[in-house]
C-alpha cells in the first residue's frame, strides 16, 4: 500500500481493464441471451412467465424511449400515443378485416408503420420547441389521443375499449409464444439502439443533445435527424403496444393511453442509466416485475400503498442515484478496484505522463 507501486502499476491495470471488458461484455451478453431464451422453459408457471412477457414489453418500450429521448435529450412524455395507437390499430384492423388466430400477428408491421406515420405530424409540431415546452406538448398530444379513443366510440369502442380476437391456445403454455415475440422485439430494439449509437446518425443526435444550435451550425440537419429518431422510437413502441394488446386481449382508452406508462419509461431509463443502452433494459427488468408484484400483494390493497412506494422509489433513484444504477455501480467498482491506492487520479496521470515502466509483478494483492 505504499506510494511507489501505485504509481508504476496504474497504467497496467488500466490496460488490463480495457482488455478484459469486451470479452466480459460478450460473455455476459451471451449468458443473458441464454437465460432469457431458457426462461419460459425453466419456469413454466403462467404466473411467472407473465412477469417475463410484461418485463420484456417494457424493456422494448424503454429502449425505444431511449433511442429518441436518451440520445437527443428531448424528454418525451408522449410515448403512450404510439403504444395505444399500436394497440388500437391491431384491434380495429383485426375487427374490420375479420382476422383471427395467429394471422393477427401479421398486422404487427402495419402497427409499427402506423406508429412511424403518427410520429411525423407529432414530431413536426412538438420538435419545434425544446426542453419543458417540448415535454408539455408531448403531454398535450397524448391527451388528445386519449380523448379521441374515448370519444370516437364508433371506431374505438369508447370507454369499454376493444377486445382482441380469440386465441385458442391452451392456458398452460399461452404465455410462451408471447414471451418469444416480446423477446424478439426487445432484442430487435436493443440491436437498433446499438446501431443508432454507433452510427453517424447517433452522433448527430447526441450533438443535438449537447448543443443543438452548435450542431445546426456544424451542418446537422437537426429537424430531419430528430424526426427520424422519433419515428424509429414511435414504430417500435407501436409494435410492442400491439403485442401487449393481443397478449392482454383488451385495450381501453385509459390503459392504452396511460400517463403513468410515459413516466414509468422515464423512471426505468433513469434508474438503469440514462442514455446508455443497458440502462433502460435493467431499469425495466427491475421496475416492471416490482410493480406487478406490488399490485398482487393483498397488504397493498387498492394500490394506494403501491403508489406511495413507487413514488418513494422515484425519489430515492433521483436523489441518491441521479445517474442510474449502471454508471453509479461502475463508479463503485472502480472505487473498489482503486481502494488502498492513495491519490488515484494524481497517481495515474503522473504514471502515464512520466511513462513509468510498468511492473506487472507488483499485483494488486490485498487491494482488490
Amino acid at each position, binding site marked *: 500500500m505504499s506510494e511507489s507501486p501505485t504509481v508504476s502499476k496504474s497504467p497496467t491495470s488500466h490496460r488490463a481493464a480495457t482488455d478484459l471488458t469486451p470479452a466480459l461484455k460478450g460473455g455476459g451478453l451471451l449468458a443473458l441471451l441464454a437465460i432469457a431464451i431458457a426462461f419460459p422453459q425453466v419456469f413454466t408457471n403462467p404466473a411467472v412467465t407473465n412477469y417475463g412477457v410484461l418485463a420484456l414489453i417494457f424493456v422494448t418500450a424503454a429502449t425505444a424511449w431511449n433511442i429518441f429521448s436518451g440520445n437527443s435529450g428531448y424528454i418525451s412524455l408522449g410515448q403512450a400515443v404510439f403504444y395505444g395507437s399500436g394497440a388500437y390499430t391491431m384491434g380495429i384492423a383485426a375487427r374490420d378485416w375479420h382476422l383471427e388466430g395467429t394471422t393477427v400477428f401479421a398486422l404487427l408491421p402495419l402497427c409499427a408503420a402506423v406508429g412511424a406515420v403518427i410520429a411525423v405530424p407529432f414530431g413536426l*409540431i412538438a420538435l419545434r420547441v425544446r426542453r419543458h*415546452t417540448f415535454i408539455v406538448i408531448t403531454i398535450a*398530444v397524448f391527451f388528445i389521443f386519449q380523448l379521441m379513443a374515448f370519444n370516437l366510440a364508433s371506431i374505438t369502442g369508447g370507454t369499454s375499449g376493444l377486445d382482441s380476437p380469440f386465441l385458442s391456445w391452451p392456458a398452460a403454455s399461452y404465455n410462451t409464444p408471447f414471451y418469444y415475440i416480446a423477446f424478439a422485439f426487445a432484442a430487435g430494439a436493443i440491436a437498433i439502439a446499438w446501431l443508432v449509437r454507433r452510427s453517424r446518425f447517433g452522433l448527430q443526435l447526441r450533438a443535438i443533445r449537447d448543443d443543438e444550435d452548435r450542431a445546426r451550425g456544424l451542418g446537422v440537419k437537426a429537424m430531419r435527424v430528430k424526426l427520424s429518431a422519433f419515428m424509429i422510437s414511435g414504430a417500435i413502441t407501436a409494435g410492442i403496444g400491439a403485442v401487449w394488446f393481443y397478449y392482454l386481449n383488451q385495450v381501453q382508452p385509459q390503459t392504452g393511453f396511460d400517463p403513468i406508462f410515459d413516466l414509468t419509461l422515464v423512471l426505468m431509463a433513469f434508474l438503469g442509466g440514462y442514455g446508455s443502452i443497458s440502462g433502460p433494459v435493467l431499469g425495466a427488468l427491475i421496475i416492471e416485475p416490482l410493480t406487478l408484484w406490488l399490485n398482487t400483494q393483498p397488504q397493498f390493497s*387498492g394500490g*394506494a400503498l403501491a403508489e406511495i412506494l413507487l*413514488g418513494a422509489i422515484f425519489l430515492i433513484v433521483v*436523489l441518491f442515484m441521479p445517474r442510474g444504477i449502471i454508471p453509479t455501480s461502475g463508479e463503485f467498482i472502480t472505487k473498489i478496484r482503486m481502494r488502498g491506492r492513495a491519490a488515484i487520479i494524481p497517481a495515474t496521470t503522473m504514471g502515464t505522463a512520466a511513462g513509468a515502466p510498468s511492473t506487472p509483478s507488483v499485483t494488486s494483492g490485498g487491494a482488490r
Partner: protein
Amino acid sequence: MTQEILRAIIVGILVGGVYALMAVGLTLIFGVLDIINIAQGVLVILGAYLSYALSTKAHIDLFVGLLITIPAMFALGVVIHWAFIRRLRGTERTAMTLLVTYAVALIIEGILYKIYGADNLALSASYTATSVHVFSFYLPWIYIDGFILAIGLVAVIYALLYRTKFGRSVRATMQDETAARLVGIDVNRVAALTFGIGVAVTAAGGMVYGATNAFNTNSGYDLISRLLAIIILGGMGSVGGALVSSVFMITVESVVTIWYPDWAIVVFYAALVVVLIARPTGFFGRKEVRAQ
C-alpha cells in the same frame, strides 16, 4: 341560445379567474426555478381535501379555513423544495425535476386515496347551496366569492412581485439567475419562498375547485393538463400571460361545452398546437430569457 352563451361566458370568466390563481403559482415556480411542478394538480386536490377535513371535522367555514390551509400549503411547498428540488443539479435536471415532482404527486395521491378512498366528494356551505340571479339565470354564490378571492390573491401576488424587495429579487432571479447571485441575492432562499408561494395558492384554488366540482384523488390529472396548457399558451414564466390565457381558455372551453361537451377539452390542446406553430413562445413568451 344567447342566454346559454352569455351564461357560459360569465361562468368561464369566473372559473378562469380561479384557474388563473393556480396557473400563476405554476408559472412563478417555472420562472424562478426552471422546473415544471407536475404535482401542482394533486396539490390543488390536496387543498380541497384539507378544506373538506376542516369543514367537516372542525366545522370551520371554507373561507376562514384558508387562514389555516394557505400557511400549511406554503410550509409544504418550502419543505418539498428543501428536501428534493434543491438537490437537483446538472444536465438532466429537466427530466429529474419532472420525476421528483411526479413522485411527490404519486405519494400525496396515494396518501389521500388511503384516507378517503375513490369516492367523489364536494365541499358544501351556505354559499354553494344558494344562488344569485343574474341576467335571468341562477349562479351559485361560490362562483362569485371564489372569483373575488382568486382575483384578490392574484393582486396580492402582483403587489408582492412589483412592490417589495423580495419581489424584485424574484424578478431578477427569473431574468438571470447568475446575475442575481452576483448582485447578492440569496437565490436559494428566493427559490424556496417562490416554491412555497406557488404551492400556497393551491390551497385557495383547491377550496374553490372543490366547492364548484365534485373531486376525487384522481382529479389532479385533469387539472394539471389544463394548467400546463394554460401556462404554455401564456408563455412560460409570464404571470400576466397566465392570467390572460386562463380566462381566455376556460371561457372558450365553457362556450364550446354547450355544443360539444365531450370535445371541449380538446379546444385547449388544439389551441396549444395552433399557437405553437405560429408563435413557439406563447402569447407573452420571453424568447430572449429562455430558449424554448
